[in-house]
């Protein structure tokens, strides 16, 4: 093959990947495309709040503003009432809000790009080590990986981005190790591994520990394979300095790792059970109420059809055992170790680590599929045809099974939730409050259902209102100090009539009308738009 042909083939392959990646962004942003309103669970609100605060107020901040502090004030055990995550992730959201010029789309779009960066990382690493076909098939599976997009939807934003660093860190270290010799080595790759490891810690500590385990397993595996110990003081010291500089960059946040690490181990999962060694996933019963049972199912999350390919991929790599094969197996083993840390008494957030499964399962299944043809001896070009035939079946199954299932969870109606998500009128009122309610004032709300069974959902709506308005927002009827609150200069009163019509709640409507007439006579009506009224004390 001539150089020109190779170049154009590389371009075409990269172009195909770009198209697939754009499709991934399209697929993952469907809820945003449909409504252009904020969505997600409490974690999503907190990440939006931090990034948005920097951009909107045009400043960085150390001490949490009241509407964030109310919930997250004690999450940083090392330095309470400050950011509980190192700031790069959220500052990045803030920067894009400034550049994008829109509060919601900029942040939600950039977050999607960062959450889907794992697709780029896996494609890049697998393409570098195994070529285009396994890489693009891996990327395709990851687009439809519910264990990736479910936590993304819920709001575990920094964690999703942090996972994109694991393959990159391992890849850089691998390049350093395999290229190392006394005469010629590329310390740049070790320095890059250290740099990305430090950044990984700044994005999410849990994933950082995963990377550390991955590096240890990879080092030992390659050392056994190559029968050599790679160690160079000069390279290690420079890399350690790079890591230390990043570690000390935001000490209030990075030092929070220590109290987090030494705290309780997460409870019920900590009992040693030998059977756990032979299980990949966790027991859904331990997570009832917080994580849906399907999250723990291989069939639902990866598609049962990928299992034979996955096992074949592992078998093929284990039999061949080239350096690149060792790389993949070490990555798999490291995830196994991380997922079984409960045996060592560290059971916190185990289910979060499970979300990294597809990152290694997808490439292993793709490798199994692509190399399946090489298991049989066929004449002439038939092996090649068979390889592409299997790849075609792989693509068809990915679209017909995985995409079909993924579309049930992630679609334009996801988070189209009457109770939990702000409607357009509420969003506009929150925007108005942001610009017109003094920064020291709080907002209390009537009209949004505060009683069970609605409260668990409508509490999210109230929190999204706080996030968009940047003001502490509370249910009026859940306050014990109602009378003082009405006399206070610190509390604005919001009456939200927008939900009462669809709920056909005439009684609450009448009560609110009466409330306005009797209780708010000394207040001034300052906002009256599309069924929402705000009174100033």
């Amino acid at each position, binding site marked *: 093959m001539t150089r020109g042909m*190779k*170049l154009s083939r*590389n*371009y075409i392959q*990269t*172009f195909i990947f*770009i*198209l697939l990646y*754009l499709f991934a*962004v*399209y697929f993952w*942003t469907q809820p*945003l*495309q449909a409504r252009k309103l904020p969505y997600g669970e409490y974690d999503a609100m907190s990440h939006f709040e931090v990034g948005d605060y*920097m*951009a909107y*107020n*045009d*400043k*960085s901040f*150390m001490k949490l503003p009241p509407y964030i502090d109310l919930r997250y004030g004690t999450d940083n055990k090392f330095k309470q009432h400050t950011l509980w995550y190192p*700031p*790069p*992730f959220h*500052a*990045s959201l*803030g*920067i*894009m809000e*400034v*550049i*994008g*010029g*829109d509060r919601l*789309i*900029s942040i939600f*779009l*950039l977050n999607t*790009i*960062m959450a889907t*960066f794992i697709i*780029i*990382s896996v494609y*890049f690493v697998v*393409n*570098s080590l195994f070529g285009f076909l396994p890489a693009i098939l891996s990327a395709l599976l990851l687009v439809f990986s519910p264990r990736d997009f479910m936590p993304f939807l819920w709001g575990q934003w920094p964690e999703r*981005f942090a996972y*994109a*660093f694991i393959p*990159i860190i391992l890849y850089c270290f691998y390049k350093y190790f395999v290229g190392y010799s006394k005469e010629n080595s*590329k310390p*740049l790759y070790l320095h*890059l591994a250290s*740099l*990305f490891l430090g*950044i990984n810690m*700044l*994005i999410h500590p849990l994933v950082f520990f995963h990377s550390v385990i991955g590096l240890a397993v990879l080092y030992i595996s390659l050392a056994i394979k190559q029968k050599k110990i790679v160690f160079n003081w000069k390279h290690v010291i420079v890399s350690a300095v790079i890591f230390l500089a990043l570690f000390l*960059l*935001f000490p209030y946040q990075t030092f929070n790792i220590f109290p987090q690490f030494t705290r309780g181990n997460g409870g019920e999962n900590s009992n040693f059970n030998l059977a756990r060694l032979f299980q990949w996933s966790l027991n859904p019963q331990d997570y009832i109420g917080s994580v849906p049972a399907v999250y723990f199912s291989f069939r639902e999350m990866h598609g049962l059809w990928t299992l034979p390919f996955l096992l074949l991929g592992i078998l093929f790599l284990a039999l061949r055992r080239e350096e690149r094969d060792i790389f993949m197996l070490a990555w798999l083993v490291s995830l196994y170790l991380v997922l079984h840390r409960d045996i060592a008494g560290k059971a916190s957030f185990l289910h979060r680590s499970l979300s990294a499964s597809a990152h290694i399962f997808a490439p292993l299944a793709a490798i199994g599929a692509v190399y399946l043809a090489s298991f049989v001896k066929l004449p002439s070009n038939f092996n090649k045809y068979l390889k592409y035939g299997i790849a075609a079946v792989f693509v068809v199954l990915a679209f017909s099974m995985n995409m079909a299932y993924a579309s049930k969870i992630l679609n334009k109606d996801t988070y189209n939730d009457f109770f939990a998500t702000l409607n357009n009128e509420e969003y506009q009122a929150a925007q108005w409050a942001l610009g017109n309610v003094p920064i020291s004032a709080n907002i209390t709300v009537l009209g949004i259902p505060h009683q069970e069974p609605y409260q668990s959902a409508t509490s999210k709506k109230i929190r999204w209102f706080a996030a968009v308005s940047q003001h502490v927002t509370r249910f009026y009827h859940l306050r014990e100090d109602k009378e003082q609150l009405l006399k206070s200069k610190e509390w604005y009163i919001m009456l939200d009539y927008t939900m009462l019509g669809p709920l056909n709640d005439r009684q609450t409507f009448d009560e609110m009308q009466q409330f306005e007439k009797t209780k708010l006579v000394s207040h001034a009506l300052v906002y009256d738009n599309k069924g929402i009224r705000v009174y100033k004390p």
Partner: protein
Amino acid sequence: MNLKLKDIHVFALVAALPILIFSYILFGMTGIRVALGIVFVSLPFYILLNKLELEEGEKFVFSALLGLTIFPSLVYILGFLISFRLAIAAAFIVFVGIAIAVIKYNNSKKVT
């Protein structure tokens, strides 16, 4: 991915077109600005990595990761001293300056 330098830049420009069109169709001008914003924060790191012995794919992926993490770290720190918006511009100047300084230093080392 061993692509020639000039070829890869032409390819990057060609590939940018569907990205920008896609961004515009889905999210209007904000989509385009976010796409260009990612290029903006990554560019100083690409300039730096471009002069190192790395493969072309590595340069693109690494510079994007650095742009989305190291760039905002400096913006956050500068954001205590100056406005956040100004800090974005200042960080860009600082990182481009560092990239140019490193390249010049490397070139002078090669000459001597």
